[in-house]
């Protein structure tokens, strides 16, 4: 940015009120319902291509984004619908993108794996595993140079933590003290490959030690735990303390992508059931002591928003063939 944004007061992590927690529950439910709908549309052949839903990992998306301001940036992955929604991405335009409509966020050129809404500080889903981390580093560099106090959060998986880009980026952010938060959703699998087989360390967070930066492991099913860890990392980043690595232990309840079953050759039904007992929505609802009626009210409001988004998407025109040749160059 040419204009130097005013440096914000470095906010002490605010204590969550019941109202905040209620909003967080609502956001997790928005993600859950959006993903269920997306999966349904995919199975019905209405959403084309590859889709990776994040059901089970909602607390990560919402816990992180609750700790961010609108001007802060996120960069996400192939499994990015949850992060997108939590950051405020416009749902109708996002659904339109999934359905390949001209009104889609990316004009039907990106699809599920490349959702972005720059107006909301969402700098894109990047579906080359690990590619988003160097970019987050550069955004952090820009924020440091402009002195704006903004931070960039990069979401990635356990699998991505084995890419060279992770290590190069952590080192760059550490030597330059960049305001970047590396948020690793360890859902224990990269497609079918278990993290214990892929990764030399038990806790991915210890890798931060190699870059003289804080690394913590949190319960990725507990939205409050995720929020608190992120808020602390954000505080540190805004104060010029440099990057942090947060590892959230979590689990995807659905298959990896496109109709991959929930359990099968690489994981058992028992394992999935065990994790489902720790559903992040249930944990948050219990914390809030939500009554059945209150849950119903949440669901009703969320489904109304979702149905409106679907109506918008379905009512939108197809992208024209000519539009496939636009925006190649600025």
């Amino acid at each position, binding site marked *: 940015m040419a204009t130097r944004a005013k440096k914000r007061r470095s906010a002490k992590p605010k204590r969550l009120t019941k109202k905040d927690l209620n909003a967080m529950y609502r956001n997790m439910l928005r993600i859950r319902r959006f993903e269920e709908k997306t999966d349904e549309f995919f199975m019905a052949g209405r959403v084309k291509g590859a889709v990776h839903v994040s059901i089970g990992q909602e607390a990560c998306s919402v816990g992180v984004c609750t700790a961010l301001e609108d001007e802060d940036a996120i960069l996400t992955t192939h499994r990015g619908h949850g992060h997108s929604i939590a950051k405020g991405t416009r749902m109708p335009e996002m659904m339109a993108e999934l359905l390949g409509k001209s009104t889609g*966020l*990316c004009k039907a050129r990106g699809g599920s794996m490349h959702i972005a809404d720059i107006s909301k500080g969402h700098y894109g889903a990047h579906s080359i595993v690990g590619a988003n981390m*160097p*970019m987050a580093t550069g955004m952090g560099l820009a924020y440091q140079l402009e002195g704006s106090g903004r931070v960039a959060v990069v979401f990635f998986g356990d699998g991505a933590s084995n890419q060279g880009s992770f290590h*190069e980026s952590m080192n*760059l952010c550490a030597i330059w003290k960049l305001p970047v938060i590396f948020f690793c959703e360890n859902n224990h699998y990269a497609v079918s490959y278990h993290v214990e087989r892929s990764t030399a360390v038990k806790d991915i967070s210890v890798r931060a030690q190699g870059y003289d930066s804080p690394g913590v492991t949190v319960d990725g099913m507990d939205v409050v735990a995720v929020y608190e860890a992120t808020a602390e990392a954000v505080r540190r980043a805004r104060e010029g303390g440099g990057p942090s690595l947060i590892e959230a232990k979590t689990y995807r309840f659905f298959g990896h992508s496109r109709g991959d079953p929930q359990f099968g050759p690489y994981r058992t039904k028992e394992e999935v059931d065990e994790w489902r007992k720790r559903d992040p929505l249930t944990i948050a609802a219990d914390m809030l002591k939500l009554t059945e009626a209150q849950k119903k009210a949440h669901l009703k409001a969320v489904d109304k928003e979702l149905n409106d988004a679907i109506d918008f998407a379905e009512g939108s025109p197809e992208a024209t063939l000519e539009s496939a040749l*636009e925006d190649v160059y600025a």
Partner: protein
Amino acid sequence: MPVLTKDNHEEQDRHGGLGQAQRPVPATVNNSMIGMSSPTRGSGKKPELERNEMREITFVDALTEAHHEEMERDERVIVMGEDVELAYVFGVTKGLAEKFGRDRVRDTPISELGIVGAGVGAAMAGYRPIVEIMFMDFIMLAMDPLINQAAKLRYMLGGQLSVPLVVRTPGGGGVQYGPTHSQCLEAWFMQIPGIKVAAPSDPADAKGLMCAAIRDDNPVLMVEHKMLYKMKGAVPEGEHVTPFGQAAVKREGGDITLIGVGYQVHNCLAAADELAEEGISAEVVDPRTLAPLDTETLAESVRKTNRCIIVEEGHLRSGVGSEISAAVQEEAFDYLDAPIGRVAALDAPIPFEPRLEDFVLPNTANVVDAAKKALGVSV
């Protein structure tokens, strides 16, 4: 790795190092050869600024000057790369760190993927980064951020942002650095929509194209041939921006068109001199940018001369010449009196040993021979 600093220039030179006239090209470019007297033609587009106030500077100094001026003009321009603060290898970034500070001009670890990716990110956030890759060969480590991210982001995010990134890198052989430090890989990038590729052949174009690259809102790859760095030539005083997509006629002629890419322009000019001695008048055209490619100016020359040779330093197979040849024949097929000829590096890695290297790289004799063949003159 050989390091080029003030102190060891001499040693470099003694060892036939950078910029030495191992190749059949004078270290100083004659003004008449670089388009001072022959005006730049560009498909009816505006001619460049009048070149009245000229002075002789090296290719490196022209690039350095471009950096200084553009960084002064726009504080969003930043520079990153290995050893750029001291400009320790080829010297392009000299004086920048002192003048603009180490926030804007920073050394990086040896992390090509990381730093090119960071350049993409900084560009996404509104800066105009210039990333130096020490040797073009090393760009292979950064193909993901360049090809999968920088070139596609604007498109795949529906035009929501642009990526004004410049990656600069020295390419080419002639300095005995061997297979992994001598390549010309321009053809790899020419193929990719969303990225621009420039390959200047003289100091004036080096400055003009560098300034244009920095001002461009798209990702640009600047390929600087190592043999050109110490070459001197006339550069206009003051602001000098060379628009992309405008080829330049570097020497006028009527019998055959020699299209040269980057450093190979000088082999074409040397060949044109030799051909002139035999009464053959060769026109030398430099596309200057490979993407976008000014097919019209190239074809216009061929429609006049009816014969064409393309000279590049990348490999022959699927090279820059393959693309230019196809484009020219599509535009000028009816005017061609001979098949379009291609001169390029032979299809082997670039060997280190000087005799072998000379054998694999294109030279003036190759160009002369190809031209004579196209003209039906016995070689």
